């Protein structure tokens, strides 16, 4: 198994008030060819920042360390190289299908775009777009190809977003909370679809999520992040059967599940590790002062 994506010692920082603030502190992560890796963490864990730094989409971010995609080093690479891998090296699916489509552009145009900018003829791009949309379960794909995003439901929009992400046949798909905004039934459909499409095309998947339950059915490997660091990474069965890190144990114990005894009290992460609830707008010092979560 060769590594498709190899992140090592990744540090990401943003310009702060006085000095840059580091939000990802040396993350190591590997996505092998054709495998599905879940990057799990709560808000503020840096999981999204880590995933996005692969495509270097945030011009404000300062990235250090190493990100190799298919052997190609991306940190410090020329903008042209980075742009070259966007779409065809790695595709991206966002959390909110309502905001990730351009409201004034026809969805067909948006699906074709990755191909058209790579020199594929419009006719062929259109055919491939319709075929892909059809494959993704959009009924009457040819007729709906020229619709606008607001004419689609949330679940359908997310399929369109997936089509945009994979039409240029990337080797890696980065899915950033792809189902968080969806209802549970649609979530199941979309996850299943991602699963199938990834297997068909032999794509590696990096799934970013806060939901350990969907990880169980989707991922081969799991990486758990907290406060910008990786606390544990293991194959999925191992992680769920015998979580090593107390934080992971805390997370697992905090999830209400359909197959557990409801009279057993949920545990909380705080029962396992020292926590303070991060306070928005007031990190460091005030958070300590507020540290009253129990």
């Amino acid at each position: 198994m060769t590594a498709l994506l190899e992140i090592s010692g990744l540090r990401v920082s943003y310009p702060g008030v006085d000095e840059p603030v580091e939000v990802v502190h040396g993350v190591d992560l590997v996505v092998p060819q054709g495998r599905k890796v879940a990057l799990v963490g709560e808000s503020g864990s840096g999981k999204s920042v880590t995933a996005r730094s692969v495509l270097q989409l945030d011009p404000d971010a300062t990235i250090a360390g190493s990100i190799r995609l298919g052997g190609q080093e991306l940190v410090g690479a020329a903008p042209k190289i980075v742009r070259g891998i966007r779409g065809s090296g790695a595709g991206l699916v966002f959390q909110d299908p309502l905001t990730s489509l351009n409201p004034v552009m026809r969805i067909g145009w948006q699906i074709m775009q990755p191909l058209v900018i790579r020199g594929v003829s419009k006719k062929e791009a259109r055919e491939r777009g319709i075929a892909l949309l059809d494959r993704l379960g959009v009924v009457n794909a040819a007729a709906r190809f020229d619709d606008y995003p607001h004419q689609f439901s949330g679940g359908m929009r997310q399929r369109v977003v997936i089509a945009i992400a994979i039409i240029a046949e990337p080797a890696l798909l980065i899915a950033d909370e792809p189902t968080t905004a969806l209802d549970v039934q649609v979530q199941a459909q979309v996850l299943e679809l991602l699963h199938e499409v990834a297997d068909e095309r032999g794509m590696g998947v990096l799934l970013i999520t806060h939901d350990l339950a969907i990880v169980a059915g989707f991922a081969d490997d799991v990486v758990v992040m907290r406060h910008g660091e990786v606390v544990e990474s293991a194959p999925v069965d191992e992680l769920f059967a015998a979580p090593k890190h107390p934080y992971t144990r805390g997370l697992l114990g905090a999830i209400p599940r359909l197959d557990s005894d409801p009279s057993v009290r949920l545990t909380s992460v705080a029962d396992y590790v020292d926590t303070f609830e991060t306070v928005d707008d007031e990190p460091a010092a005030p958070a300590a002062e507020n540290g009253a979560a129990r």
Partner: protein
Amino acid sequence: MTALLPARLRPSSSPRRAPRRRRRGVPVAERIALVVVVLIIVIAIIGPWIAPYDPYRVDLAQALQPPSAAHWFGTDVNGRDVLSRVLVGAQVTLSATGIVLLITLVIGVIVGTVAALGGRVVDEVLMRITDIGLALPSIILALGFAVALGPGLQSAVVAIAATWWPGYARLVRSIVRETRHAEFVESAVALGVSRWRLVTKHILPNSLDPMYVQVTLDVAAVMLVISGLSFVGVGAQVPSAEWGAMIASAADNVLNGWWALVFPGLAIAITAIAFNLSGDWLRVRQDPTLRDGGAR
């Protein structure tokens, strides 16, 4: 306690660009602007006492003197000291502006609140009235009022106030409507809070902040209309030291008495810039996404 960090990592966990220009406290330009605003208000109050000459005394022998030690801003075509007139004019221009904004604010808040909290019919009627007010530039409507009331600063003030309030009513209405549907207001209703307490304690305090900003920003806009009306001869009349009227009387001598034109205009421009910058600063400060810690 300013921190960009958590804001970009918040719920969607998609890093958004945080506004770049954020520093501790008040930025330099805005700090200067606040000082200038205070200075201008002080001048508007004590102007007549610090003016070196009688701003209205005509002395044709002294006409169109360039700036000098005796007359820092020179003299106008009637030999009046421009500096004295600018100082006294501050009072004329700013008090007229203040009166317009006060009337506007009162009408706007009342109409806007009634429209937002009253029934659908009330809302519809009031808003259609404001539509008409907004469909025409103030200065055009003000000309209409001026022809009805006769030229003069008072009629200019009445005219502008009469045409300016719809914008405020619109603003108040939209903010109050938004606040009314905020979850904390619903929460107060669910708690059993009385209607009066709901409006005075929950809705209005959370609605009026943008109004202060708007008033600050509008000082410049209203001042420009007043001086514009005076400039074309519809507002303040001849001997008045209103800044726009001063520019009007200097306009015929653009080429041989620039100072009589430049200084009152600078007074308008500086006042407008200072108020606008202060307003911008207020706006940034009250924007909840930008607001820093610290209870008020």
